[in-house]
């Protein structure tokens, strides 16, 4: 079942609120979210970490789960950590304003 476009946009928008605390950049712009789709009435977000030994791994899992849980339109979800393909710096968004200024999420606090 294809995922409703509005919900997909909403998920992406909310996931921009998940910020790598050390880099101050959100996980969408870092290219850590690989896929967002719907399967068996469940929204699945496939994401990765920068390396298999990344200490942020559990933190990211928690943050993605909390974000999905906070979206009213989603009843069932899964935050799935994947390792293929391996993350690389080429996956960072080209147009991200990298460290140019504090990201909006931080400014608003």
């Amino acid at each position: 079942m294809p995922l409703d476009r509005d919900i997909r946009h909403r998920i992406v928008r909310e996931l921009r609120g998940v910020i790598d605390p050390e880099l101050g950049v959100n996980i969408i712009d870092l290219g850590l979210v690989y896929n967002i789709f719907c399967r068996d009435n469940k929204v699945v977000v496939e994401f990765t970490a920068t390396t298999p030994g990344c200490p942020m791994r559990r933190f990211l899992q928690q943050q993605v789960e909390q974000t999905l849980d906070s979206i009213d339109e989603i009843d069932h979800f899964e935050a799935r950590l994947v390792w293929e393909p391996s993350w690389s710096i080429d996956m960072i968004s080209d147009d991200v304003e990298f460290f140019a200024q504090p990201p909006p999420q931080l400014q608003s606090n």
Partner: protein
Amino acid sequence: MTNRNVSTYLLVGLLFFAAIGLLTGLYAGLVRLGLTIDLIHSISPLAHGPLMVNGFLGTLISLERAAALEKKWAYLAPGFMALSTVLLLSGILGIGKILLLAGSLFLLIIMIYLYRLHPRAYHLIMIMGAGSLFVGNSLYLFNVPIYTLVSWWIGFPLLTIFGERLELNRIMRPPQKAIWLFVTLIFLWILGITATHIQRNISWQIASVLLIMLALWLFKYDVARRTIKAAQWTRYSALCLLTGYGWLVLAGLFGIWKGFPRAGLFYDAQLHMIFVGFVFSMIFAHASVIIPSLSGKSIPYHKYFYLPLILLHLFLLIRVAGDIAIAATVRQIGGYGNVLAILLFLGGVPYHLFKISSQKRKKKGSQLQNIA
């Protein structure tokens, strides 16, 4: 909804043992500085180093890696470290030392496993960090004096952190030549500390030159140069990193000046410039990542956390000044101040977590009242 197969309770339990290692290690440090309190079970001042390096850093770093790997066997590393802390504190040194070695062996296996999954230079450097702890603990098991083996204990956090920084700093796209330079400097530094067993002072002085070069490399290529312009934890973390690299430069200069003493105030200054100035700055820098990863609770940012950071650096400067001037009281003030700074940081974490959760409860309560 989660694929986590290890309970947060286990992580928090092991984190508790790391905290025990830290607190008892700090207490042993105070005893070393001359503090005397009548306790039923006193801790030997000689336990300061083993508790801080193994009980605290060994348990924490291996726990962090095991949690990242999500393999049950990997928890044997922090498990053995935690158990050995208890045994060392109970005075059961023989078995305690064997378990320390077992813990560092499992940490080494974790790092090799990570390298096999992802064979990159930064994982290789982390293998050398765990290997350094393993060598240090092997020597400790055979009762080699701590002043002889301490360079291997220094190598453990230093190389682990260097590996982590190289991994993260991919984002700065350092040229391939620069990466090779960093790895070569690390290899040479390890050769340098190995050679301290043959020619202690000259080898340490050479290793100190290499340490300065490594710190300068980090100043040039670390992402902290950019993230210092950000805000909140990101900015705080960057400041911790950059000041930590500053301490590495000072430690290197001190090593060139004084060589590698076997005891006394210069020995004290050299070790604490690295372990407090560099390593604790790195711990402060990564707390906003490590604690949520292990406990499941995000630490709310507050300007308060700058207080322990400033105190840490200030009192370390005082301590080192006391060491150089051979002024025992000044050194003592600096040492006590360092313990205070670490405790203020440590205490700030649960305080701010509690403050936020009570604010949330109040907010929820008033919302319910409004509805009613």
